[in-house]
């Protein structure tokens, strides 16, 4: 958990390696069996050129970063907006970075507005977005 909440404070990054096995496990756990995630021969015939990770798998890593920083406040009252820019593929290593962009007061309650990005090993942006968490 963060002990010091201030604008510009970086959140601890989360680094994860994507494998087809993890994508398959996520499909089993989530019930999302879209062949673009699982069927390598089908995916190779599409404009994406191969299987891709579920967008929600990438967001799970963002949520892990937020949980590490803000604990139950995130789990019980968090807000998130995300845009998926590029697909994450098997073999990619994803790094989720985030920081507190600003701290706002509304009705005597403080909220941390954070921004995040998820990059692959080439530095390409996979997901960007913002989160809000009650302090």
């Amino acid at each position, binding site marked *: 958990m963060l002990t010091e909440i201030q604008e510009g404070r970086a959140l601890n990054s989360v680094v*994860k390696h994507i494998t087809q096995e*993890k994508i398959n*496990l*996520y499909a*089993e*756990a*989530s*019930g*999302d069996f*879209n062949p*673009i995630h699982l069927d390598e021969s*089908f995916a190779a015939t*599409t*404009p*994406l050129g191969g299987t891709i990770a*579920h*967008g*929600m*798998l990438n*967001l*799970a*890593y963002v*949520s*892990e970063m937020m*949980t590490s920083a803000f*604990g*139950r406040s*995130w*789990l*019980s*009252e*968090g*807000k*998130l*907006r*995300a*845009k*998926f820019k590029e697909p994450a593929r098997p073999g990619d290593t994803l790094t989720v970075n985030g920081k507190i962009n600003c701290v706002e007061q509304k009705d005597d309650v403080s909220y941390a507005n954070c921004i995040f990005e998820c990059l692959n090993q080439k530095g390409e942006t996979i997901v960007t977005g913002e989160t809000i968490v009650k302090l």
Partner: protein
Amino acid sequence: MPVKTISYGELIPGYEFPPATYELSASLVSKYLKAVDSAGDGFVPPLAITACAIAAMTGSFSLPSGTIVIHASQELEFFKLVPIGATIECHIGVAQKITRGKMSILILEFEVLDKGKEKVQSGRATIALPT
């Protein structure tokens, strides 16, 4: 998984899918945590709940064979902690359906309620389907 009751072509803004119910059992949560490579913290991860809602959404309508679905954006709001073993109900509706050139875009909104009908989570997903 919900039963596919409607084709993509039949979806119109305002359409509401039949609610989908999930039991967030310890084994389901454990499977989810293994998939996302996380230790967990004694509650159902909110993104595991979202995953159920997304699966309910995409599993509720049928697509022409060979169509790929691309998750373009996601908005989420969490309202309460959910204990392992809870049962949730996902309510999903079509907010917008847009065609832009060779891309069809579907915006779906969802609300997740617990057994006491209290709101657990809400969200909005934008999915793109190249045609």
